[in-house]
């Protein structure tokens, strides 16, 4: 079943890339389409951040991941590069698990 997700997702992403190079520019230049283009990644990423941090399946859980995210927020506010943000969050979560 994971293979279905991998192949269907890859096909969907490739279709988006080809569409961008192929459809008439006026379609993607439409103001409403432009607004969706800016809003969609922001909304998806925001929903992913919270669900990946405080949910397990269908239950809300507060664990070491939350501490990791708190550290990631600080790193992001300090404009740390991508990898530093991820490694700092990972280390914080590992540390919490070590001491609890």
């Amino acid at each position, binding site marked *: 079943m994971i293979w279905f997700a991998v192949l269907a997702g890859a096909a969907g992403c490739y279709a988006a890339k080809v569409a961008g190079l192929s459809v008439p520019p006026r379609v993607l230049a439409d103001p409403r389409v432009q607004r969706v283009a800016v809003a969609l990644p922001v909304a998806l990423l925001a929903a*992913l951040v919270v669900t990946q941090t405080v949910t397990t399946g269908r239950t809300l859980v507060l664990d070491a991941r939350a501490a990791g995210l708190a550290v990631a927020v600080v790193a992001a506010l300090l404009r740390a590069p991508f990898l530093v943000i991820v490694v700092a969050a990972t280390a914080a979560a590992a540390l919490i698990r070590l001491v609890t």
Partner: protein
Amino acid sequence: MDRTSAAPADDAGWARQRHRVLRDALAVGVSTGAYGLSFGAVAATAGLSLPQASALSLLMFTGASQFALVGVIAGGGAPLAAAATATLLGARNAFYGLRLASVLGQRGPGRLLAAHLVIDESSAMATLRDDPRESRLAFWATGVAVFVLWNLATVAGAVGAGRLADPTVLGLDAAAPAAFLALLAPRLRDRGTWALTAAAAALALALTPVVPAGVPILAAALLVVAVAARRPSATGAAR
């Protein structure tokens, strides 16, 4: 550019420019490759096999979507929800293509190959430059450098994390949310995007107990974007 009319001085200038473009492309490839390590580790932690993690980096080849797909699966979401979330996040690549089409000027098979390399990094490097010849080189060089290093790093990260009996001891389950935050942070430029972020996050949490795993992400994002698209002020000026 007409080659026959180029003076020798221009050729020397182009050689310097080309060197600079290739060096920048390699630097972007190396830093993106480092982030591929974290993708490989997150994928293995989520339970993907090495072939599955590699297939994502080879065939999907767009980082945020790959992290999203793996994240939804890790959270117990259905494969269809995972594929849909990844595709929606990958839709932004279509808008890069809009700007790249005139620069690349590819037709037929060339366009199908170029399309695969349309990602955040190659698009940024190409659209930063004014000279079409430089833009084209920046696109291909960055795309190829990132593709090669991203795929090698995915294998290294997945093999490394796969050797651990319990990756959560190292906090690797905190890597995915941190990665999403790192991708989101540069987009929070105005009050409109902050409002979108808060609304999507709150809605996703509210939906979590009542719908199957993976669905809250899609539902929250689509609802919030549907509202935002109706109100021009909500997302600020279009890019």
